[in-house]
């Protein structure tokens, strides 16, 4: 981590689901443009941490700040705006809308932000060649291969020019070749655009793309490690 002010910080994060604690006082920060891998076994709280940092879940206690501003207490409308403009998401199964063709899926953050359909689709079309999806814009998600779906999810995550992309097991449903392609594309494109990435994974080969790794167990960080 550099000495500059972190882009996103989580401090003392606690989160429980009923009697089961998922986070027990997590502290974590991400710098602008940094690729951070959060590793750990299943049930260690990785996904919960990501959801809390991204404003999808509200922590029971602790705080999340973006550029020094609290975001965990923002109303739904503001958190939705953050998800649309400051953050992007790539999850294990792409999280594409099954009824919409890929082009409109990629354009969705812009459409929800109020941009006209024509302009939003035009912006989406610019992203397809960069991610090797040329000519596939009119296919439905169900007609895409797993790697293609994840690349569409990456395009959707990046289209609004976010500062941070949250990726939760982005290669979990892919074979190793497709996984390498997707990570290569995600990291390369994010670096080109100076976008930070928080990637949750339990695969060392995925974590190898990161600038920094932290390992979690039972809702706590057990091993911060800087990547040489």
């Amino acid at each position, binding site marked *: 981590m550099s000495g500059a002010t972190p882009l996103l910080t989580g401090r003392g994060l606690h989160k429980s689901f009923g009697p089961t604690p998922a986070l027990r006082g997590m502290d974590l920060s991400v710098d602008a443009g940094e690729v951070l891998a959060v590793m750990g076994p299943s049930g260690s709280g990785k996904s919960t941490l990501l959801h809390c940092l991204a404003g*999808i879940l509200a922590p029971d206690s602790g705080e999340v700040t973006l550029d020094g501003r609290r975001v965990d207490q923002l109303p*739904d*409308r503001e958190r*939705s*705006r953050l*998800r*649309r*403009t400051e953050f992007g*998401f790539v*999850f294990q199964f792409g*999280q*594409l*809308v*099954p*009824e*919409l*063709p890929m082009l*409109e*899926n990629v354009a*969705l*953050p812009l*459409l*929800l*932000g*109020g941009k006209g*359909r024509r302009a939003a689709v035009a912006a989406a079309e610019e992203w397809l060649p960069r991610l090797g999806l040329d000519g596939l814009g009119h296919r*439905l998600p169900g007609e895409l291969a797993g790697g293609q779906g994840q690349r569409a999810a990456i395009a*959707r995550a990046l289209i*609004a020019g976010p500062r941070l992309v949250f990726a939760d097991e982005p290669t979990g449903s892919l074979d190793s070749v497709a996984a390498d392609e997707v990570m290569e594309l995600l990291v390369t494109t994010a670096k080109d655009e100076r976008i930070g990435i928080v990637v949750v994974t339990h695969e060392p080969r995925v974590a190898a793309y990161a600038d920094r790794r932290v390992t979690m167990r039972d809702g706590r960080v057990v091993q911060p490690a800087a990547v040489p």
Partner: protein
Amino acid sequence: MSVPLGIRIAFAGGRESVARMALMAVGAAVGVALLLFTLTAMPVLQRHIDRLAWHRTTEASRPTAPDPALWLAVTDRYAGRDVIRVHVAALGPRPPVPPGVARLPGPGEVVVSPALGELMRTVPDDQLRNRFPGQVIGTIGPDGLIAPAELVGIVGRTPRELHATHGALEIRGIEQPGKRISLAGFYRVLISLVAVLIVGPVVVFVAMVTRVGAARREQRFTAIRLAGATRLQTAALAATETAAAVIAGTLLGWLGFLAARTVVATTSRWGMASRSSSKTSRRRSGRCCWCWSRCRCWPWRPPS
């Protein structure tokens, strides 16, 4: 943005989405049609009762014309259907006139309902036509008929003929519709019944149809929320999707109601004898086929 996107998502999901929407629309259509039929039942019944009023004419009916008339109403059967025959004789130039006819038929004249006229043309004279002696000079209009299929005829007689006939009454007026049915209490019960028996099952049906695509629906809205939709936008998308099916279903149900009510109206036997008892047994018992009791609401009481 949410509404057009919602409509697009609702119809863009291929056969599964279209099937789900169609089932939801059918559920709504059935509910709307049943509700409309239920809500129109009482007004229809009231109208039938009003049209039935002239059949209850007796010597006690309030005067509706300056001159009296002789009146003998009988009912018999043809091919399992009730045939109402009213013998009349004017006792002056301005006698009471039943609804649906312009004037009281004179001696040797007959007016019949359209259904009776049609039936008389299609069966041998000695089976039906001979029960209505005289020349058919016109038809009874809708105001004088309970239903289009009603078989009723008014036979003009001379006063002398009817004076000599046992059971003929001297009337000064045609019985008019009475007080309207009080619907307030009825509607309270009706709404409860409709909710439980009709709308309830339809709601369950629509809910079950919605659950068919629940997993995909959840996936869709999760994706949309992740892409930055607010709760309000997500709710608007969901509502648009459901509203599209419900609007289509409501339209379908309304059209179904409009189409089916014609059929129901022409086949309805409300207000007409529906029990399969013979003329003789009914006459012997003196029971009304409307309420099946010894009442004065139907002119089938045996002449005393």
